[in-house]
């Protein structure tokens, strides 16, 4: 039935409640991940279906966290890993695999563990040099990071203070070279043309059947009723962020990525 009675997220939350209830009902026991080739093969299939589009086929790509690292910050134990897969990480893009049975969850978890054994990738750049490049290229004009205990910078782009936990190195590299490749939902470049002939560019904060809210590149909010607009164009093929492909050489790119990977402020 999976009725549309609840919003997708609400339903996830309810799923969490249910799982939490189930978890509470069972004493906490150490989780043993299966290790037979059949289980791993099945885990791989499920992983390719449900996880690849965020974590990449080998765990080090996509907009999800890098799962090919030797140690997963939030999934140190196998129990934590299985729980994260089962209920997701609330408040982040990491969803609950609500459609998997407990056995499937452990099979996927086993496959995730095997990723680290296959590919241990160190990020080769220099963090300090990357930090300097971040300042030099004006990234702070659009992004915030934590410096000296304070979140500083601009608001045009996403907060980068925990970006090293959220995204893989390959995704961060891609973000610098080809920003439109993966647009976070709150940053879809949108242009409105008003009935009186004015054009405003910004990112889409809200759009419904009757109204549109944009944030322009100076950070100002603009709220419109559709009847006052001639055109609304949301363009996912562009990003408000410029590409740094031409502006950074290979070493600089590595350094900047290394700096971004080092940004691991715990989620507030």
């Amino acid at each position: 039935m999976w009725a549309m009675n609840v919003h997708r997220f609400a339903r996830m939350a309810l799923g969490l409640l249910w799982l939490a209830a189930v978890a509470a009902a069972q004493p906490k026991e150490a989780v043993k991940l299966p290790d037979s080739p059949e289980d791993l093969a099945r885990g791989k299939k499920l992983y390719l279906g449900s996880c690849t589009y965020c974590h990449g086929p080998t765990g080090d790509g996509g907009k999800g966290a890098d799962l090919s690292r030797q140690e997963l910050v939030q999934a140190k134990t196998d129990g934590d890993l299985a729980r994260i897969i089962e209920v997701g990480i609330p408040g982040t893009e990491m969803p609950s695999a609500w459609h998997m049975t407990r056995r499937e969850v452990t099979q996927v978890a086993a496959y995730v563990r095997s990723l680290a054994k296959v590919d241990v990738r160190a990020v080769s750049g220099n963090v300090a040099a990357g930090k300097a490049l971040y300042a030099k290229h004006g990234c702070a004009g659009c992004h915030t990071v934590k410096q000296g205990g304070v979140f500083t910078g601009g608001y045009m782009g996403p907060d980068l203070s925990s970006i090293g936990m959220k995204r893989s190195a390959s995704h961060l590299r891609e973000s610098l070279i080809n920003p439109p490749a993966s647009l976070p939902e709150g940053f879809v470049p949108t242009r409105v043309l008003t009935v009186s002939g004015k054009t405003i560019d910004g990112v889409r904060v809200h759009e419904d059947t009757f109204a549109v809210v944009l944030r322009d590149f100076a950070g100002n909010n603009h709220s419109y009723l559709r009847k006052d607009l001639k055109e609304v164009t949301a363009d996912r093929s562009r990003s408000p962020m410029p590409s740094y492909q031409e502006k950074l050489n290979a070493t600089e790119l590595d350094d900047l990525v290394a700096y971004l990977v080092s940004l691991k402020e715990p989620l507030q």
Partner: protein
Amino acid sequence: MRLPLLGLTSGLALMLAASAAWAQNVPFSRIVEAQKEPHNWLTYSGNYNGQRHSALDQINVSNVKRLKVAWVHHTGTTESHETTPLVVDGVMFLTEGPNIVKSLDTRTGNLLWRYEKKIPQDLRLCCGRPNRGVAILGDTIYYGSIDAHLIALDAKTGRIKWDVEMADHKLGYSSTVAPLAVKDKILIGAAGGEFGIRGFLDAYDARTGKRVWRFHTIPGPGDPEFGTWEGDSWKTGSAAIWTTGSYDPATNTTIWGTGNPGPDWNGDVRLGDNLYSCSFIALDVDTGKKKWHFQFTPHDTHDWDATQVPVLIDGTFRGAAKKMVATANRNAFFYVLDRDNGKFLAGKPFVKQTWAKGLDDSGRPMVIAGTDPTEEGNLVWPSLAGGTNWASPSYSPQTKLFYVPAREQGAFYYKGEAEYKPGVIFNGGGQRVKPDEEPYGAIRALEPETGNLKWEFKTQIPLNVGILTTQGGLLFSGIGQGDFFALNAATGELLWRFKTNGPMNSGPMTYAVDGKQYVAMPIGRSLYVFDLMES
């Protein structure tokens, strides 16, 4: 103006003035002829025919611009608010999840009584703890509780008369549907389609709560349709009931939609057509015996329940008078069937779909190979939520159009493991909506004879709010993002809207009291009631 000496005096005066009307008694004969008292809303869909059309016309195309909030009733519910209130002679009856029934004064929203069911903590649910409303018969309110009980309450006080268990909640049975009162019986079924239940529709003696019959939505041994499930899979095949059916007094037939076969997305473990999942079933109310069935999606693997309210239409089909039942199904097709025998008359898609070449002469979908869920994820339109979901459609005898809240969205469907364990979720997969796509919705007005689109009103997001049409030429509905609106039912022109910024998960209804028409709609955690501003 003369001021009353005491607040109490005026309150009493009102009570006295209305008290004659407050003697709730709704025999079956009144519900059968509900169209004769349009100021009331006596059953879930307003009328046995499931049309959600009201003959009230005080609020109409020329004055709806003056609609404003009359009163608001706040609830404490944190569940999806899915109730359709009933109104009987100035008194309203509504539910709120997870476990509350209330009665309100329809002019003010003042609380007359409140009943709270004690519910267990170990419920097995897929989708929250909502409830869609109550039934009334005689002086009694009937309520299906989330733990799969049917409860009878005194309409004037909310005091309990009886409470019967329909099925064991520990096995995944639950109830969210508004019961249907017919003759001396209360009809209700169980939800739980994600737990491998064996679905049923029950009839209970309205006076005693004794079960009179049970129709299994999955036929057992001995039934001619037994054998549309491989092996023992019928025992855990689900086919739940979670939206209210309709009733045709002329033939004493009740028609209900049934839910998905279980497990939802892995069809390998239940080969066969899986009757009567994803079907309409037509039963004799006295005996519970089946008259006919029509299966929209044989061997469904996308969770496309047929739990849409069946809409009974008396009209003409290809020139001849015909008794029809129409529905826009979750599987993206619109259907018209012959109500007397369940035979397929016409059907066509009303939203984008990529899983069938079309319908054959018997109405069976010609399924395109390779559209089942896979372990890697298979992209198919429509998404799991379907071309439309459970939100009620409407048919207006005035415009002769069928209205549906439509959803344009695709999804990746996954197949997973499916092993039945009692009381444990039995999905066999799932879905992920297509990312980087801008899904949208529309109110679509279809000609029931052909399924052809007459007009559409496009919305930013896919719709899941029910529709009400009125003799005032209006169509009321809403958008999940928080807009409640009125359209011209003939043209789709937007005439009025109210920005609520709250979610809407139900549908509107209308009633009148003291000669004044109101429109009621659950929005966010509240019930909003609208009336016309004095001109």
